[in-house]
């Protein structure tokens, strides 16, 4: 039995915190989902860029429907847990929600850019910037 790390397109590096959370014995996978790319409208340029990227990552690459393959791979690996990175992308969030119904899914945030001392004010950029600038010039965005 090994836990799975599902790398998606928003987290394509071997130093993403998901690897530390999952541990060394987890198996990392990336699903090459043509239909997902088609819906996103990705050009050949982007697909080549992504493929070059995943070739440098410690992942197995499988081709097919993301949701279906994740379930099959978790079953084949008898995975107790699936780890992945958070994403604002509704398509990825939908898959995560469905996976959560049948598997123990843990979503890991990427390293933060800044540390805010309250809720982010997102009405306009410069309102947000006035909050963010307090730690934006600090290493790791933390005082």
């Amino acid at each position, binding site marked *: 039995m090994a836990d799975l790390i599902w790398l998606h397109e928003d987290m394509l590096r071997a130093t993403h915190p998901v690897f530390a959370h999952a541990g060394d014995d987890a*198996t990392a996978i990336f699903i090459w989902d043509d239909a997902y790319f088609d819906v996103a409208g990705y050009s050949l340029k982007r697909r080549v860029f992504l493929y070059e*990227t995943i070739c440098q990552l410690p992942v197995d690459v499988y081709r097919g429907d993301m949701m279906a393959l994740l379930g*099959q*791979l978790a079953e084949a690996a008898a995975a107790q847990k699936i780890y992945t990175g958070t994403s604002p992308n509704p398509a990825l969030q939908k898959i995560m929600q469905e996976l959560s119904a049948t598997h123990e899914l843990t979503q890991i945030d990427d390293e933060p850019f800044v540390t805010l001392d309250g809720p982010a004010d997102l009405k306009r950029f410069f309102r947000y910037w006035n909050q963010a600038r307090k730690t934006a010039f600090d290493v790791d965005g933390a005082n």
Partner: protein
Amino acid sequence: MKNIIPTGRIPPSDYLCEMMEKLPKNFADRAALIDYVRALSPELADAPVSQTVGGRQAGAARLAQLDAQSYGSSRNYLDGAVSYLSPYIRHGIVTLNETRNLAIQQGAPKQVEKFVQELAWRDFWQRVYHQSPAKIWRDIEPYKTGYSADHYATELPEDIRQARTPSAAMNFFIKQLIGTGYLHNHARMYLAAYIVHWRHIAWQAGAQFFLQHLLDGDPASNNLSFQWVASTFSNKPYFFNLENLQKFAGSVAPCAAHDNVDFDDSYDALAARLFPHSEALNG
């Protein structure tokens, strides 16, 4: 092509179901990899491929070339010291955090402020996206152009798709977008403004076109920037004139007046022409 797999982790396993289609990761060279991806996407087989190379190695090489101070003084020029990190940041290959950590080593906060602020824009867009994914394709606010949303056409015209507009500079940007998957931020603003304000095309159609071709295309940064230009996520529309275009793009793009007549006017005159129903823009 080198296939770098960090040590210390169990290699991807063999026990996973062999019936699934597992894709190769080792290729003789970049051309072989490109051929393989073309074969995976036969409907795109004739499409161009960018010279920009994917992967952490290429991203780290870009990061090593960062000049955050020069960025501050030259970023608005199309030949300025921009980082070209955006495709890598878009896909998490390089992080905002490590980029900032490097930038603040290159100068005092005031000297690297513009670059760090640019990183913050990306963080801002992502936070808006996280908070309200549905806003990405909807007008966050009404247009402030004097026109309502239904004034704008929903389809991108063929002359824009094919870089055959009346403007040589816009055609140059469109060709660059399609051919390389990259556009300088200022060029994106010019082209987005041209699409929305000169051609009266809904920002969504322009955003979809950009997302299709940009290597760094991200629904948050791309669409919300388009909304900023359109005025559905800003207090007023962004537009430009020929003088501005020539100043910032003239060293790179064909900006002669006779090839870009639509922009050859004062800001007041352009505002009157582009936004005739807006009192706020024609005060």
